[in-house]
């Protein structure tokens, strides 16, 4: 008790220096509490918006792909996902899976009429099954038209349309005929006439999705020739011959027999071959992701998986990068606090040499001196820490209802846009307390060593 009394009154005697230290500790604590709450909240929000709008809990892609596909990046050409029907059947049979959405990403040109002449404009897009995609990922808001429910075609973002007008002098209107120009796998150019079905605004990550448009998968298959003859419509003998040819090269000659007889093409039906380059899998519970991925890997479907954060690349790491920056800034502040505190304590010890010597002469053990200085530091720093935590808590609570408003650019990178919903957690507070206690102990090591070296002779020498 006497140590606390001496500590408290000694702090009061050195008010100005101690207030400076307290302010720094309080600011550091506030930064740590509010900053880590913000980044943790941003991490949760960005994870939620990425999983529920772009990647699902994980993405499935062709095993032979040399790159991990990302809905946020255009690293085409990507190989088409093999065994899509079996893959879909397997995934939908898993009790943990909520829904799946296959899609492809690609780019082409749109050939448009401009006052009697043609102009080609770039067109980056997702090729999606419109109904499935819109049901799973509500990541756009239609400004005009519909999400390809009125028929096959394309959608463009409002920003893209503005950009076309600014750069190329053309502005597209819903219902307008457009021609998609794309390089086919054979090296030729496919021209596919279609319609603009709608204009949308992305709801998240505008800085990426303002530039990405949509095309329905049926049109995509036409543009890139992902269409073939349905196996069921082939003559039975030919189908048998083809199956045998797949087993052995020698069997190919079987096709020269009855299987090679003329085919009645009027009886053939076409089949859309999958052009999908990835499948987003949304789970009922994110924690089951590893289990489902492991189960899928054992199926031998020639596919690989990538978790949401890997598939979304940079955007999943923005919150972590910001958190690292906050830790760095807080670390710097506490380093400064530790140095100032250490120097202040050393000066205080020099000033109080006679006082310490007197206490030692009167019978105080070294541990008593140690306790006084430790108490001074802890009282000062923990009080300042509590103030910082209280201010941090008020800020978090104050912004919890409506979310923390952020400048649009920051918000877009951090959580995909909009105010940041703040999540109150005890961990930033516990962390701040541990950090302040650790800084306090560390900063007192040297001063306490100096203080306990003062002998009772110092009291006698104080004339």
């Amino acid at each position, binding site marked *: 008790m*006497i140590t606390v009394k*001496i500590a408290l009154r000694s702090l009061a*005697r050195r008010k100005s220096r101690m207030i400076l230290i307290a302010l720094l500790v309080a600011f550091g604590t506030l930064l740590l509490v509010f900053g880590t709450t913000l980044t943790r909240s941003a991490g949760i929000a960005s994870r939620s918006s990425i999983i529920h709008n772009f990647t699902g809990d994980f993405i499935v892609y062709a095993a032979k792909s040399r790159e991990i596909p990302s809905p946020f990046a255009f690293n085409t050409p990507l190989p088409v996902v093999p065994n899509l029907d079996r893959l879909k059947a397997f995934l939908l049979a898993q009790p943990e899976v909520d829904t799946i959405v296959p899609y492809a990403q690609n780019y082409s040109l749109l050939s448009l009429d401009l006052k009697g002449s043609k102009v080609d404009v770039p067109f980056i897009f997702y090729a999606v099954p419109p109904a499935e995609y819109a049901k799973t990922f509500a990541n756009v808001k239609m400004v005009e038209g519909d999400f390809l429910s009125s028929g096959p075609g394309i959608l463009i973002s409002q920003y893209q349309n503005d950009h076309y007008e600014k750069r190329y002098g053309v502005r597209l209107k819903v219902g307008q005929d457009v021609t998609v120009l794309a390089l086919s796998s054979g090296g030729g150019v496919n021209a596919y006439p279609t319609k603009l079905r709608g204009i949308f605004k992305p709801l998240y990550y505008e800085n990426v999705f303002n530039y990405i448009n949509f095309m329905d998968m049926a049109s995509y298959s036409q543009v890139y020739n992902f269409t073939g003859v349905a196996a069921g419509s082939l003559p039975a003998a030919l189908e048998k011959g083809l199956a045998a040819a797949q087993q052995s090269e020698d069997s190919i000659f079987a096709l020269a027999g009855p299987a090679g007889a003329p085919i009645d093409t009027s009886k053939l039906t076409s089949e859309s071959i999958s052009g999908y380059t990835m499948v987003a899998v949304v789970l009922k519970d994110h924690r089951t992701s590893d289990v489902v991925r492991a189960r899928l890997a054992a199926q031998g479907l020639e596919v690989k998986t990538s978790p949401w954060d890997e598939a979304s690349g940079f955007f999943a790491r923005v919150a972590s990068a910001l958190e690292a920056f906050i830790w760095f800034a807080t670390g710097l502040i506490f380093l400064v606090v530790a140095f100032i505190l250490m120097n202040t304590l050393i000066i205080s010890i020099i000033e109080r040499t*006679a006082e310490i010597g*007197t206490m030692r*002469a009167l019978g105080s053990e070294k541990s008593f001196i140690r306790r006084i200085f430790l108490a001074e530091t802890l009282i000062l720093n923990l009080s300042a820490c509590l103030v910082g935590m209280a201010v941090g808590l008020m800020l978090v609570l104050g912004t919890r209802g409506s979310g923390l408003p952020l400048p649009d650019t920051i918000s877009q990178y951090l959580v995909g846009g909009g105010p940041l919903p703040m999540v109150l957690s005890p961990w930033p507070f516990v962390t701040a307390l541990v950090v302040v206690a650790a800084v306090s102990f560390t900063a007192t090591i040297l001063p306490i060593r100096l203080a306990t070296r003062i002998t009772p002779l110092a009291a*006698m020498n*104080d004339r």
Partner: protein
Amino acid sequence: MLGDTRVDALRGVSLAIEKGEFVAIAGPSGSGKSTILNMMGCIDNPSDGKVLIDGTEVEHLNDTELTRYRRVKIGFIFQSFNLIPVLNVFENIEFPLLLRRNLSRREREKTVMRFVEEVQLSDRLKNKPNELSGGQRQRVAIARALVTNPLIILADEPTANLDSATGHKIIELMKSINEVEKTTLIFSTHDAHIMEHARRVVNLHDGLVAGVESRE
């Protein structure tokens, strides 16, 4: 040691002080007065020789043992009073009792008040040292030295920072305490008027006992 030079503050001093004595260690500056008090007070060790207090050879005790020995057996009065600046009069006097941790709060209060009255500071209990005069501060220091009922009280030039009249009053107070409490009281001084109050005066010169005068 003064830099690299060895300085013998005391040279072959042999001195015995009986229990209950009121002794002055006299001599000019540099004669070794403070050094001999420091050794008696267990805050300095002789490079050679023995210090025997109440049958204990204190030069063999380690730092912790010396600290405990001082706490129980020795009271100090310093030239510059050396009160703890953040504690008030009552708390300064109570401080050595708190270190001993063997008394209840009530017993501590009773003991402190007894010595507060003895040094006539009952009306200054709540004052901090910087609100007291030099004489009042030294009276607080005397009460603090007495409060644990030590075997010896050592006072290093207790009147040096006081005016002459106050100095005499302080020495008179110490003398009366010595008579009432029967505590051994040893003080150093270079003031001839002050040393006249002592019953025995040990004169030091250049680290040697130059003479011992008995005033009784």
